């Protein structure tokens, strides 16, 4: 059954769930299989914490399923990403960081990483990038993750974030510059 459902669009599958058809569970499983990977990655990058990401991820799909039981959805992928985004923002407001950013501590940590890093040490590069990503504001982090982690084109991101493409491009460019500035500030040695 699951194989047969693969030919349906996400919206058609959502319709099956809403109508409580006999295949509604399979339809939900199909939607999950198509969107879960990117959604989980997106949430993980936004939160920077796998535990928090798991909570938001779970809550996203549960909210989506509940919503579908009473309402129809025009753009399923956009809708699910928006649920996740809002859940993240709500969580962020509640858990607003209270610990001030310690500049001195950060520099020590960066120096330590630079000492360890080698040309082929991808894991440390990833760590540096994630660290830089964590310093970004949500509006930059979100578009950067969508563009370079989820590999979505500008039109798709614009649809998910309700932005026009030009504004989006500027924001992505700005996000990348902020990351570069962070890396240059703390890891100048490895760039040069």
């Amino acid at each position, binding site marked *: *059954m*699951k*194989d047969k459902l693969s030919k349906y669009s996400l919206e058609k599958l959502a319709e099956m769930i809403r109508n409580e058809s006999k295949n509604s*569970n399979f339809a*939900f*499983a199909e939607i*999950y*299989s198509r969107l*879960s*990977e990117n959604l*989980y*990655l997106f949430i*993980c990058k936004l939160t920077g914490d796998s535990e928090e990401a*798991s909570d938001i*991820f*779970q809550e996203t*799909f*549960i909210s989506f*399923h509940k919503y579908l039981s009473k309402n129809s959805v025009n753009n399923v992928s956009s809708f699910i990403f928006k649920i996740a985004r809002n859940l993240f923002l709500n969580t962020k407001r509640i858990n607003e960081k209270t610990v001030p950013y310690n500049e001195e501590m950060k520099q020590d940590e960066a120096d330590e990483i630079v000492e360890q890093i080698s040309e082929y040490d*991808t894991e440390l*590069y*990833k760590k*540096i*990038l*994630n660290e830089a990503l964590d310093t970004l504001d949500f509006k930059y982090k979100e578009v*950067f993750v969508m563009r*370079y*982690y989820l*590999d979505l084109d*500008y039109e798709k991101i614009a649809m998910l974030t309700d932005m026009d493409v030009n504004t989006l*491009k500027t924001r992505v*460019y700005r996000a*990348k510059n902020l*990351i*570069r500035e962070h*890396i*240059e500030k703390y890891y100048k040695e490895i*760039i040069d």
Partner: protein
Amino acid sequence: MKDNNLLQDFLDAALPDNLQKELFDKLAQDKELRRELKINMGIEKIARLDRASYKIPAELTQSVFSDLGIAFPVPNKSGNRKGLVLVMALLLLGFLVAGGSYLVYTNYFSKPVPVNEMAKAKTSIERKIPIVNSIAINSESYEKGYSAGKNDAIKSITARINRLNSNNLSNSNGNSHKSKFNEQSQSNANNGLLAYAEDANSVSGSPNSPETVKSNSFERIERVSDNISSMRTNYSNSDDLGLSQEYNSSYNQPQLNGALSLYPINLMNSYRETKWNISLRKLPTKSLNQSSLQANNAIYANTAFGASYNLSRSNSFGVEFGYENFSQQFTLEGGTLNYDQNPLMLWYGGFWNYTPQALNIAGFIQPYTQVFVGGTSVGPLLKAQAGISVNLIRNVYLNIGAEYGMLIYKVESNYYNSRNVGGTMGLKFSF
């Protein structure tokens, strides 16, 4: 266009060719721009590499579905599986048809190849005999023309010759398998029998040569038998016939009579999530046909090899090959000739195995049943088996069971059967 915009569009693969040339010119002159390109490319590359690090934990997926009260989705490979099963079934069917055609052709349509002198003599009668690997006994003629004691002596000695042939022959089926191995075996058989004939002639003083034996038919058989009888009379000890002590001792050894042997077969469905099984087993050696001929007990005799596919946790099907003794008794010439032989025959076929999961004992002992339909060069073979499969380690199983097999064959428009029953034991490997 600003340099940064050019760079951004270039990285997004959206820069027109003319502007691309402009960018390359600038990159050639501007070291800072080259540095910026390098950093931007590095960031994007690391982001893509980092992407692979994020996999949804299985328990998270399970948690989502359990919270919603929906069955946990499992990879559905039914489509592929159906296709695979279909291909397997077609291959099995093709194999059975091709193999069966070959065996039937070689047995019933090709020219019979005599395996010994007496059998060669009998080809003049153009008789269809399922397996020819030993001497014919015209017991009725003997009863008419000779005393009972002489007849017994002939039978006894003939049985010994057959025993000798049986030991010498791995498979003396002259009608089919023409492997080098069998050719050699047949040669051995011929030599053994010729040696016997010469020996018998020399003892009795008869001028009969092997060539003469070839040219005659049943009269010659009787004359040779008469010589044997004379020999029997002159020499009270069978050792005097020139048979080695080894043959004599092996002749006196009891047959296995269906005792559990050391090799196995197991083609039951594994309760582990495996798809394929291969197995090796030892077959029952007890014949219900009361043959006076001892079976070939070479290490490869009464052994079977199989391969099967698990359709589900309880059902599997597969193919199996075996090399097994089938004791055969039948009559020729309207019942005037009694034939007794115990050839080692190759068989093959398909089977279905059923393992009722509900009967699993302690998680590692699984009862099973199995039915087999196959064929040999002389006719169809049916087998039924039941037993237990014990999980020894990981995907290795020990199968112990009992089996009943029946070979059906036809001689001169009469149907006969050869039945083997007893224990079977073997190993199965699942993967």
